[in-house]
């Protein structure tokens, strides 16, 4: 029986640095395996769509412009992604990877949550086609 069994912890803590971190000012180094934003490399993609089949939250979509010449654009909805990395696991050609540095993706508009991956000219082509079909739409809105 004792009273104040934790008083020793408290007194020792008085002379120690705080256990908390001053987060936005000081950044904690992230582990290598941290699952952050998804990245897609179109050069190795064969368009098998295995990544899309198992996505639990319908966050990725592959827009095939020309399958023979391997012109693919991936639409990635960051706000839907649950960061489970199942797509990375499913990809047999190492097209997909998750960043361990980009994990702060909060935004005030919806626009930054929609990302297009692909060759620059393909993405440009897709966006132009979308604007042509629906002139009222926002420039980043993809075709329906």
């Amino acid at each position, binding site marked *: *029986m*004792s*009273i*104040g*069994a*934790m008083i020793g*912890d*408290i007194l020792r803590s008085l002379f120690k640095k705080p*256990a908390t971190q001053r987060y936005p000012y000081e950044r904690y180094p992230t*582990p290598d*395996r*941290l*699952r952050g934003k998804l990245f897609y490399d179109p050069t190795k993609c064969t368009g098998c769509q295995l990544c899309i*089949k*198992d*996505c*639990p*939250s319908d966050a990725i979509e592959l827009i095939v412009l020309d399958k023979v010449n391997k012109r693919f654009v991936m639409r990635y909805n960051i706000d839907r992604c*649950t*960061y*489970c*990395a*199942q797509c990375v*696991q499913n990809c047999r050609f190492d097209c997909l990877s*998750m960043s*361990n540095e980009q994990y702060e993706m909060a935004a005030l508009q919806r626009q930054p949550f929609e990302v297009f991956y692909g060759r620059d000219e393909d993405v440009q082509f897709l966006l132009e086609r979308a604007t042509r079909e629906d002139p009222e739409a926002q420039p980043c809105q993809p075709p329906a």
Partner: protein
Amino acid sequence: MDAQQIGKGKFVVPIGPQHPALKEPGHFEFTVDGEIVTGASVRLGYVHRGIEKGAENRNYTQAMYLMERVCGICSHVHATAFALGTEKLAGITAPPRAQAIRSLVGELERIHSHLLWLGVAAHEGGFDTLFMYSWRDREVVMDLLEGLTGNRVNYSVNVIGGVKVDVDDAQRDAILKGVDFLEERTHHYIKIITTDETLLGRTVGVGVMTKEQAIELGAIGPTGRASGLERDVRVDAPYAGYKDFPVRLVTDEAGDLQARFVVRMKELLESYRLIREILDHLPTGDLTVRAPRRIPAGETVSRVEAPRGELFYYIKSNGTDMPERVKIRTPSLCNWASVINLAPGYKLADMPMILSGIDPCFSCNDRLIKVNDRSVSQVWTWEDLRQHGIEYYR
């Protein structure tokens, strides 16, 4: 149990569903005679999310990630239970290394869950110092889990047929170092919960449940084991890596709140031992086996030991790539009976402690909503019920 009937002509203290003391919504009604509680009732269903229904139009891999989100604290055991059940239906077995890693992450998760509970229970008892320090130390295991799996909460370790993550030497050293620190702290906490007079005053002799009562009320997990009930799925029906790495059962005879503290803390020590053993004798080999997309028709049950007790999954397959029915029974649901039966006779101020003593997880156990229509009484067939379910969620 109907709250209105119990409360007739008596003073009833309602708690919840929105209440600052409860972190999740649940409604309790305690009838009191002065300070002493004479009756208790519980009403659940405020956080029903239709998860079982949601699993029916997802494929097995997608459903596994949905199951992982049944519980925010013990997410890994849910995915493990679902993956083990699906593998059983598909007739495949994950490689030994994958099974060991499943158990390893399961034990790390148990550590984080029990340390979290220690903090919450201490907080309900007004011992906020213990709450702060136990949660500070819990960060150690959270960081280990983040380093090993890539996320602090939903680890996503499992795939159907194995695991995604491997343990390399750097991970191994980090885990061993973290476990050494946590073991030292756990010994310190055991000393505090067995000697600090303020905490002993709140826990010794409160909410006493005998072994007979525990069996009668269907108590499971650490709540039952604190009453001497020798029941642990890891021991009784070893799954995943527990066949190769046996667990020693931790029980206590006292059956009161203090015994529940002691049992959970001793389980931590057992988890540390098990983690060291798994890391020392980690089998070599592949991490996954190939799993079919279409699971052969059949039905199965899968049981695992979650930090709160036995977790039960029923999976029915109709031969397609989506499950036909998934039924989940989480451990919190089994322990409610013990709370409402043990409460009478104790002071109203003890209720938060008795409640948190079972480590309740409200969102996990809300599996149904009561559609209350007293005017019509009708008998529905399974097909009618199914159709009603489909219409209800549309």
